[in-house]
C-alpha cells in the first residue's frame, strides 16, 4: 500500500514537473512568438488605396478620373448548383467584355457567334467553379452596372472586391495626350506615355493604412488598437487643352483621314503668346481604358515623337533666318531661280519643274520654290544656317510636358556637305517633330519670342494649387523679321496653291509642306507626308497650328490635303473664339 502511494506521488510529481516545463517553454521561451501570433490573429491591416488624380480640361470638365471597378469572385464550396450559376453569369460576363449589347443584326451567323461565345464563357466559369478551392476569381474589370445585375441574380457564394480604375467620360478622345495607366513590375498602377506618364508622381497619390484589432469573427474591437493613416489622393491636373478645340481637331482629322485616304494624321494647336497647347490629336489612336487591345505602335504620339522631314513648311524658318541676318529682304531678287540648280551630281528642281526668273523672296515662299531656298542657303552659309536651326530648337526636345517626347538628332555641323545645306533649306534631309515646327513657327506669330509649349495649366490638391506659368525660352529673331515673314506667309496663303480653301474675310499666315518619305535611302515619290502650318488672325494670333497627313492617297500634296483641313479647323476656331472677319 505504501509503495503504491509512493508511486502515485512520483507520477504526480513528474506530471507537475512536465506541466511546469511545458508552461515554462510556452510562456518564457516561446513568449515572443506567441505574442506575435496572437497579435497577427487579432490585428488587421488594410491598405487604403489612394485614388489617382483627375485630369481636367481647361473649363474644369473631366477628361480622366477614377471609377470603382469590381472583381467577381466565387467560393465554390458554397455553391450547390454550379452549372446553373455558370449559365446565369455567362451572359453578364459576355456583356461586360465590351460587347455592350446583343447585335442588332439578328442573322443566323451573328446569333450563332453570340451563342458560341456565351457557351465558351459558361464553360470557363464552370471550370473555375469545379476547382477544389475556397476562393477563385471569376471576372475582372466589372462595371457597377454589371455588378448590380449579378447581385440581382442572388447567387450564393458569389462576391465582389472593389478596386479603382481609370474612367474617361469622353471615351477614347485625347488618347495620345493622356497616355494610359497600367501595372508596373510590382503590380502597382503606373502611368505610361503622355500626361499619365509625365505627371505620374503627382497623379498617383499615396496609399493609406488601417491597423485595427479584430475579434474572432473579424469584427473590430472598439477598445483595441485603431490606427489609421489617411490616403493622400493624387493631385488634379488642370489642362490648357480646350475640350471644344480638342473635339474640333479630332473630328476634322478623322474626316480628313477618310477623305484623303491617309494612313495617319496629327494636329497640334498652340497659343503662340503663352505656349499653351489648346488641342493635340494623333491618329491612329487607341482606347486609353483598354490599351492592351491595340498594337504597341499606336501608343506613340506622332505630334511629340513622330519625326518627319518637314518639306516646304521649313522654308519659312530659313527665310526668317535670312531676313534676320540681313542677307535677304522679302524683295531680294533670286539670281539662280531661272532653272534647276546643280550641286555636285545632284540637280535641285522646283516641285512643278516651273521656273521664274527674277523671283523675289516673297515669290519664292508663295511658289514654294526650292531653287530660291538654295539661294537663301548660299547667302546664309552653313554656320549661320546651323546657328538658326539651333535657335529655332531643331534637334532639341521642346520641353512639352508629355512623357514620350523625342527629338530627331541634328547632324553635327562638320558632317554637312554643300548638298545637305541646300536640301535643308527646303526641309529635306532634316527631321523634326510636329511640336518642334509649331514651337518654331510660334516665334514668327509671337513677334520673335519663343515660348515653351505646355499642356498643364495648374497642378492642384485639396490645400494648394501650383500654377504653371508661361516660359519664354529664346528670341531667335527680331519683331521686325517676324512681321516681314508673317507678310510673306500671308501672301503664300492668298496667292499660293491652297488659296481655294482659305476662309473668306480672314487674314491667315501659313505654308504648305509636301515631303517625300525616305525608304531604304531613297525617296518614294508616291508616298508623302503632307502638312500645313500657320497662324491666325495674323495681327493678333490666337493660335498657331500644324496639320499633318501621312501618306494621303487622294493627293500627295499638302495644299490639297493638309491645307483644307487646316482651314476647316481654323473656320470653326474663328467661330468658337468669336473672331470676326477683318476683310
Amino acid at each position, binding site marked *: 500500500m505504501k509503495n503504491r502511494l509512493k508511486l502515485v506521488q512520483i507520477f504526480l510529481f513528474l506530471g507537475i514537473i512536465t506541466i511546469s516545463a511545458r508552461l515554462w517553454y510556452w510562456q518564457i521561451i516561446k513568449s515572443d512568438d506567441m505574442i506575435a501570433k496572437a497579435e497577427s490573429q487579432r490585428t488587421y491591416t488594410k491598405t487604403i488605396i489612394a485614388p489617382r488624380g483627375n485630369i481636367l480640361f481647361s473649363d474644369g*470638365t*473631366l477628361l480622366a*478620373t*477614377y*471609377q*470603382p471597378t469590381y472583381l467577381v469572385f466565387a467560393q465554390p464550396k458554397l455553391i450547390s448548383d454550379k452549372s446553373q450559376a455558370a449559365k446565369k453569369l455567362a451572359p453578364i460576363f459576355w456583356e461586360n467584355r465590351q460587347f455592350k449589347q446583343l447585335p442588332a443584326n439578328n442573322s443566323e451567323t451573328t446569333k450563332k457567334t453570340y451563342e458560341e461565345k456565351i457557351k465558351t464563357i459558361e464553360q470557363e466559369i464552370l471550370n473555375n467553379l469545379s476547382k477544389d478551392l475556397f476562393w477563385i476569381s471569376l471576372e475582372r474589370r466589372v462595371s*457597377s452596372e454589371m455588378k448590380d445585375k449579378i447581385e440581382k441574380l442572388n447567387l450564393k457564394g458569389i462576391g465582389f472586391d*472593389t478596386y479603382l480604375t481609370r*474612367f474617361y*467620360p*469622353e*471615351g477614347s*478622345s485625347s488618347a495620345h495626350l493622356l497616355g494610359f495607366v497600367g501595372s508596373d513590375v510590382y503590380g502597382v498602377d503606373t502611368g505610361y506615355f503622355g500626361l499619365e506618364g509625365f505627371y505620374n508622381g503627382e497623379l498617383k497619390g499615396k496609399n493609406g493604412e488601417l491597423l485595427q484589432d*479584430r*475579434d474572432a*469573427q473579424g*469584427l*473590430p*474591437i*472598439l*477598445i483595441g488598437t485603431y490606427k489609421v493613416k489617411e490616403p493622400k489622393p493624387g493631385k488634379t491636373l488642370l489642362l490648357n487643352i480646350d*475640350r*471644344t478645340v480638342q*473635339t474640333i481637331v479630332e473630328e476634322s482629322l478623322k474626316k480628313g483621314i477618310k477623305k484623303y485616304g491617309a494612313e495617319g494624321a496629327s494636329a497640334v494647336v498652340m497659343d503662340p503668346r503663352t505656349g499653351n497647347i489648346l488641342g493635340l490629336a494623333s491618329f491612329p489612336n487607341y482606347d486609353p481604358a483598354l490599351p492592351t487591345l491595340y498594337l504597341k505602335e499606336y501608343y506613340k504620339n506622332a505630334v511629340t515623337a513622330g519625326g518627319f522631314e518637314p518639306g516646304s513648311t521649313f522654308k519659312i524658318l530659313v527665310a526668317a533666318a535670312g531676313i534676320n541676318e540681313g542677307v535677304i529682304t522679302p524683295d531680294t531678287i533670286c539670281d539662280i531661280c531661272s532653272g534647276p540648280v546643280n550641286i555636285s551630281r545632284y540637280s535641285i528642281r522646283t516641285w512643278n519643274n516651273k521656273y521664274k526668273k527674277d523671283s523675289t523672296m516673297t515669290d519664292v515662299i508663295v511658289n514654294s520654290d526650292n531653287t530660291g531656298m538654295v539661294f537663301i542657303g548660299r547667302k546664309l552659309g552653313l554656320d549661320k544656317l546651323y546657328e538658326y536651326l539651333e535657335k529655332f530648337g531643331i534637334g532639341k526636345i521642346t520641353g512639352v510636358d508629355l512623357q514620350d517626347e523625342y527629338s530627331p538628332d541634328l547632324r553635327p555641323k562638320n558632317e554637312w556637305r554643300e548638298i545637305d545645306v541646300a536640301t535643308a533649306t527646303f526641309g529635306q534631309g532634316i527631321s523634326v517633330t510636329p511640336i518642334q515646327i509649331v514651337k518654331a513657327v510660334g516665334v514668327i506669330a509671337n513677334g520673335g519670342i519663343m515660348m515653351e509649349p505646355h499642356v498643364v495649366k495648374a497642378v492642384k490638391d485639396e490645400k494648394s494649387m501650383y500654377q504653371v506659368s508661361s516660359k519664354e525660352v529664346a528670341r531667335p529673331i527680331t519683331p521686325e523679321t517676324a512681321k516681314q515673314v508673317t507678310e510673306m506667309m500671308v501672301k503664300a496663303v492668298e496667292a499660293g496653291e491652297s488659296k481655294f480653301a482659305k476662309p473668306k474675310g480672314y487674314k491667315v499666315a501659313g505654308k504648305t509642306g509636301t515631303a517625300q518619305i525616305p525608304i531604304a535611302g531613297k525617296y518614294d515619290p508616291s508616298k508623302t507626308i503632307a502638312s500645313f502650318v500657320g497662324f491666325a488672325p495674323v495681327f493678333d494670333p490666337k493660335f498657331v497650328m500644324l496639320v499633318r497627313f501621312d501618306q494621303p492617297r487622294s493627293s500627295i500634296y499638302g495644299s490639297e490635303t493638309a491645307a483644307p483641313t487646316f482651314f476647316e479647323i481654323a473656320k470653326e476656331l474663328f*467661330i468658337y473664339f468669336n473672331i*470676326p*472677319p477683318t476683310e
Partner: protein
Amino acid sequence: MKKRYLILITAAVLFLGLILEIWVMNRLSTFGEQIVKLERSAAELKLENKILENQIAEKSSLRAVKEYSRVLGFTNIKNITYIKPSEVAFSR
C-alpha cells in the same frame, strides 16, 4: 470607525467601477458589427457618389452632347453674319 467606513466606501466605488467597466466592455464589444455596417455603408455611399459624378460627366461630355443635338436636329453653323459697330443704330 472612520477608517473602516473609508475602506468600505473605497471598496464599493472600486466594485461599482469594475461593474461599470464590464458593462461598458460588453456594450462596446457588440458595437463592432454596427461599426462595420456603418463603415461599409459610408464606403458604398462614397462609391455611389463617384459613380453618379462619372455618369454626370459622361452625359455632359461633348461626345454625348453632340449625339443629343444630332437627335434633336441641330446642325453646324454655316453662315455667320458679323455686325460691325458702325452698322448698329444706337438709341436712348
